């Protein structure tokens, strides 16, 4: 039965260091015309997979203290970007790209984020029809690893996620390093460097049980209306993806030289809304994520350093980061809000730490960063008035040699959907334009492309 379902679901088996790549129904249409060429390109053509991720921080920045003056390479580092100095050669800054509201209300901390992620700002959840760009990318490259994507949040809340297929289908996050460890390196971990490999019949059995579940599809879909049919089909897509995952467990994985199963993390004590504690947790989570990537457990991730409308605080303060962005008076001698500035700098310190940690993982002749593209972004630019013009974006990594790092690109009011479009194209999604309404664009950010 599994075979019948799979054939209907279209299997593309390519060789990726020996691993089968199985593509489910959702990207069938995307690849029929491509003869798999785009797919192969995505995989870098070599032995190392190219991965993709997002890194999110809340409440943006203070534009005059964050946006570099100089475009191109060796851009200047204003005070809030100073923390990235050590990793500047890996990081591109994309400034001045706008979310365009198209006459819709600017829902604070929401419109900007959906605009960046889906290429269209909406004001109700039912209006979100399009998947976020990380999902479009994971549909294209996520199937060859055990986890199609790892969604991570550091605020302890699994609902902190900005990755969704539509307004009612949101990918819940793993909300702590301890849970991430259990998920990736727990009982089901398939060590790619283990000398002997024997398929475990338990995986075979689990897979055949899921095939049994999948067999119920037709009968159930016949019972329900069209909206329910879409929902049930989403469920059956999830079943198929899980069958594919289990199929991977039955094959000897390709070796991964940088992969070392980490030790279980020791939970960090303290209030996770405190920025110091948050950064320590983030460091731990990043180390685990880096190993999950190096061990080929996933090719796509979404790391949420904090929430939109950042809930970060300093222990003992009545007023947190988000409240400060709106309430703190501009210090006349400094010319900016000093508390807000400190939190924004703290967020950039965490981002620099993230890039450094992944860059420290050696892989092939280079590092993990060489085979990775990370899009970092916030949900506003200047948080005080929820500005969605010039929402800050940064990129890290070379994406298998397809991206030039270390540049500053000025967007000059162009739609921010150009960035989501470019990221998809870099990762091999066959798409020539993306976004909705005024944000529909067919122009890549060509400055960063090799």
């Amino acid at each position, binding site marked *: 039965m599994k075979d019948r379902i799979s054939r209907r679901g279209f299997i593309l088996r390519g060789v990726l260091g020996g691993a089968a790549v199985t593509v489910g129904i959702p990207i069938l249409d995307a690849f029929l015309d491509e003869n798999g060429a785009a797919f192969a390109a995505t995989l870098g053509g070599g032995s190392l997979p190219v991965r993709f991720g997002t890194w999110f921080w*809340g409440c943006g920045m203070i534009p005059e203290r964050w946006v570099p003056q100089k475009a191109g390479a060796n851009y200047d580092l204003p005070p809030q970007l100073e923390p990235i100095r050590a990793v500047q050669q890996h990081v591109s800054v994309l400034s001045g790209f706008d979310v365009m509201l198209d006459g819709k*209300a*600017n*829902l*604070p*901390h*929401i419109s900007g984020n*959906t605009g960046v992620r889906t290429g269209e700002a*909406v*004001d*109700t*959840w*039912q209006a979100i029809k399009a998947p976020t760009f990380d999902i479009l990318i994971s549909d294209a490259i996520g199937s060859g690893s055990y986890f*199609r994507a790892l*969604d991570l949040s550091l605020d*302890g*809340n699994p*609902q*902190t*996620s900005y990755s*969704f297929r539509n*307004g*009612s*289908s*949101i*990918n*819940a996050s793993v909300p702590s390093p301890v849970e991430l460890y259990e998920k990736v390196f727990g009982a089901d971990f398939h060590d790619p460097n283990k000398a002997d490999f024997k398929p475990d019949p338990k995986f075979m*059995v689990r897979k*055949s049980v*899921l095939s049994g579940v999948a067999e119920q599809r037709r009968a*159930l879909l016949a*019972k329900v*209306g069209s*909206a*329910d049919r879409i*929902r049930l089909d*989403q*469920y059956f*897509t*999830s*079943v198929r993806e*899980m069958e594919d995952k289990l199929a991977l467990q039955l094959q000897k994985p390709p070796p991964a030289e940088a992969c070392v199963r980490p030790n279980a993390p020791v939970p960090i004590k303290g*209030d996770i809304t405190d920025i110091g504690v948050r950064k320590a947790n983030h460091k731990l989570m990043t180390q685990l994520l880096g190993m999950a990537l190096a061990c080929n457990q996933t090719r796509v991730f979404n790391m949420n350093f904090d*929430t*939109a*409308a*950042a*809930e970060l605080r300093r*222990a003992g*303060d*009545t007023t947190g980061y988000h*409240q400060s962005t*709106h*309430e*703190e*008076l501009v210090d006349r001698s400094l010319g900016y809000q000093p508390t807000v500035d400190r939190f924004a700098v703290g967020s950039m310190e965490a981002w620099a730490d993230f890039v450094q940690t992944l860059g420290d993982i050696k892989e092939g002749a280079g590092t993990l960063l060489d085979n990775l593209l990370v899009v970092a972004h916030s949900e506003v630019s200047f948080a*005080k*008035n*929820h*500005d969605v013009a010039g929402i800050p974006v940064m990129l890290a990594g070379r994406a298998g040699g397809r991206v030039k790092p270390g540049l500053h690109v000025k967007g000059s009011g162009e739609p921010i959907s150009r960035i989501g479009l470019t990221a998809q194209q870099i990762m091999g999604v066959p798409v020539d334009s993306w976004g909705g309404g005024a944000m529909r664009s067919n122009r890549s950010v060509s400055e960063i492309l090799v």
Partner: protein
Amino acid sequence: MKLRMSRMALAAAAGAAGLSILLSSALPGKPNAVIPQSSVRRLTEAQYRNVIADVFGSGVEVVGRFEPDLRVDGLTAVGSSAVSITPGGLEQYDAIARHIVAQLFAPENRAKVVGCAPGATDPDGARCAADVVTRIGLRLFRRPLALGEVRAGVAQTLNSAGKLGNFDGGLAATLVGMLTSPNFLFRIDTPARSGPAGTIDGYSKATRLSFLLWNTSPDDTLLAAAASGALDKPEGLRAQVDRMIASPRFADGARAFFDDFLQLSDIDHLSKDALIYPAFSTSVAAAAREQTLRTITDLLIDHKGDYRDLFTTRRFAMTRALGPIYDIPVAKPGWSIYEFPAGDPRAGILAQASLLALHAHPGRTSPTLRGKAIRETLLCQKIPSPPANVNFAVVQDVNNPTLKTTRQRLEAHLDDEECASCHKATDGIGLGLEQFDGAGQFRRTEHDMPIDVTGKFDKAPFDGVANLGQLFHDSPKVSACLVSTVWRYGNGRNIQAEDQPVIDDLNRGFAANGYRFMDLVRTIALDPGFYALPRARPAGAITTASATISKRSAS
């Protein structure tokens, strides 16, 4: 400026929540979203846990993180008709199921749950597998399995047993499959084969009824009533409804409703600054949630009380963990009812720590958040989304030398018309609760200034929460909001124009019968419209059910 603050507060509150909660589902000017009608509802986490305890015993642990429920217009019950299961979510359901099933085969459970094994008369265990799949399938899928389904289950068990080299492993795998099946994870209505068009079959009726009244799947008696066709007859349905409402398990159903209605699950992610509120902790938060639910069932179920009295009651469920928050000694272990004396500011659920702490900042109160939450949940009103370009600097400067209290800081900005429109709605109620700090502890002063808790609700003046609670008690908006919310909860969808006559009828019945929650739920459970397939509810059917209630109350 007032509006600005609410908007900020809204965003601040929403910051910790998921996108679905952040995004209002209704367009401006509309109370609720129009979402497609559905005959498929995903089990909520609480429902899943209840079913596992019912079918396998309460000793079986359910461990793992569930796919989060989606709250639509305030209710996860409505969201359950809109969600599916993501790949990550299915992974979680699978892991949870494997952990459950492993426990079923432990020596202390195996005899009770499985109860058979391969033997001389059943060498490969086919009969045993058929028995288990049939028996457990009935409870998990809430209907008898078709012969083909049982055969497939047996074949799968034997096949897996062969691969694994043991029968139990094979049977366990089949049970995991049943626990990850859409027939279990979703409640999917089956149209009736006979009877009036547009209705559902007896087993689907039993399922709707059971989740409404007990928040779990049907028990054996209800399944038998479905099998015999009794649920298709008014007297048979009535007998089951009355049996279930009379059961102690009805309290579980009521708790589930109020947990959803008051959005108490958000307490799981609530954090307070430990330096500012040392009395608050995650265990206090959990106890506060439990306190509210126990206070409600004490009044509405144990005492068959008037819903409106929830806003004036002085009988608070109490436990030792809450002593420091309420500043009272709690000597008794466990839970008991504590009665606050007349004149004490603790009166009604508006004065309970759950709602007060939930709708406040980590380090201070927020009249706007409290007012907004109360307007939206208890009065079913919509507070518009805030505008983006706002400046709160003066409003919330807690160190302002002249504006010492929150009220003063808020009122300093009443002159801004744009802000005032919404803040008049939210802050008035919220300021009436200012004598309770961000953790729900009573205080009389803020920065050494006495706190003024006077205000107006619907043009009527009040001084403090007890007065305010009395105004809520007397407000038809409060009872009407409960009626429409219970209906939406039961039906798993929002009210559309064609439902309004039913709602009007329910409101009349609720008032005529003394605002008894149990009677309201009973009327909904007896309404033939409750068992209609989407878009096919019979018109005018509610009258019968109301008449039934009136007759019963009169007798």
